[in-house]
């Protein structure tokens, strides 16, 4: 048992290191990157239910978690690139960092990198480490409010929901039946200023 935990920790650490290295390389490639951030305010109910099932969701650098007694747990993903016209519903917003999902009950895990808000389909896609095909993970949903202040575009979504494809992928990789289409993981506040 202790050996299994040690293996899990080692695997998790290795994954974190790998993803950190990849995101660093991607950021170095961007000459004049777009700026902004995607802030996910985590749903406490979702986190509690996931924890009860032994599922951990870990944001990977440069994504940054933070806690505030008023807003709760938030995770900020920096914008690293992309070209998008959110009010016209097209383009892409690239996000730095990654997401690690771990099932503590069986030691299975999956890590996603290359997070991208594909505005045309209104989905946040991410590429699993070791793969090349993006998976639609999350959908900004509920009440979406879109605005523009100068050159900065804004989107707030009252709910950030697990996409059907994401739920299927996560359950298959983690050996769970926890994830469902439309499951709310929190809310989203995105700001995006396109680079030149």
């Amino acid at each position, binding site marked *: 048992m202790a050996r299994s935990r040690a293996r899990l920790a080692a695997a998790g650490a290795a994954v974190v290191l790998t993803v950190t290295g990849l995101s660093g390389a991607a950021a170095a490639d961007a000459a004049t990157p777009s700026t902004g951030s995607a802030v996910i305010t985590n749903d406490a109910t979702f986190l509690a239910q996931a924890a009860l099932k032994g599922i951990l969701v870990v944001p990977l650098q440069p994504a940054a978690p933070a806690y505030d007694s008023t807003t709760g747990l938030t995770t900020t993903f920096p914008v690293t690139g992309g070209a998008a016209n959110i*009010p*016209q*519903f097209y*383009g892409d917003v690239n996000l730095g960092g990654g997401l690690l999902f771990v099932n503590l009950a069986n030691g299975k895990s999956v890590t996603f990198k290359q997070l991208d808000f594909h505005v045309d389909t*209104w989905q946040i896609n991410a590429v699993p480490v070791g793969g090349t095909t993006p998976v639609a993970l999350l959908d900004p949903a509920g*009440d979406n409010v879109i605005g523009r202040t100068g050159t900065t575009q804004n989107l707030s979504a009252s709910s950030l*929901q697990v996409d059907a494809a994401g739920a299927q992928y996560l359950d298959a990789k983690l050996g769970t039946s926890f994830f469902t289409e439309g499951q709310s993981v929190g809310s989203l506040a995105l700001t995006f200023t396109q680079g030149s």
Partner: protein
Amino acid sequence: MRKTAAKLLTVAALATSLATVASGTALADPASLPAAQDIVGVGSDTTQALLNQFSTDYNATVAGTTAPRLYSWDATGTSPITTKTGATSIARPNGSGAGITALNINTSATVDFARSSRGPAATDPTTDDFIAYAKDAVSWAALGTGGHAPANLTTANLKDIYTCAVTKWNQIDPSLSSATIKPQLPQASSGTRSFFLQAIGGGTAVTPGACVTTGVQENQGSDPVLNDADILVPYSVAHYIGQVYFGKGSGSDVQGPLTIRSVNGIAPVDTVNKVISSSYAATAYGRVVYNVVRHAEWIATDTHGTALRAIFGPTGWICKSGSADIKSYGFLPLPSFACGSATHS
């Protein structure tokens, strides 16, 4: 013989009358005065036929005699209009801009929403919510047979034409006619007009030159003024697809002798799938169409706010059940989670 002819005429007249009524069900003003609690809209020409279809199909799902129903007044027709029971009589708003103005200077006793084929502008009150539900695009159209216009124009060409920097076709390409170009624009309140002028200006609206004629009703290629070898006019791609491929035009609301053309080498219509070309929709000529509501009413928890969201909201009828109507009128549905998004200026 004379009696047979008279009978034929009677039958033809009856058929015409029935056809008018039938098409009028989907493509006309409300058949009877809407009730005070009904949700009533005015404005855009481009989306009026689609909203009329929404009205027919949504109202078929509403039970009870007092539940709010959806109605939409066309952009053109007799004026003034009384939009619903107890409403103030108003001049009929023709176009997105006029519809939004009517929304802002009246209360929900007269206008509940404005159809808009343009997005929010800096001049719009921040208290207006533009509720998105479909995608369209704008291109330009010209005489299909015997016209002098080329198959494609660039954004720079269009800007030159509408600022009158270029006035003859052969200034664009020496192989073209030396005839004088006759650029046309829809009337001033048209959302299609304002969107087009902004698109050809690269994001900053172009001021039309003195060579430009203003005033044609948008998306009506049947206008005799447009039956000219040298005209060009902005045209809603969705409206054109609805007219040409899905039989949604009627009366003067048809493409007539015009055909829609390319911009920057990109064809606006995917003629195989009979939809707006995805590559064209992703250019500056792609646009979103909206219904505009007052923010305070949109977020209200009373009967009126509930009715607005039941029709236009993210989980409302248009977003959940309106996709077939949207496609059949040539528009592209937004992704399900994006539909019902509120956009501010």
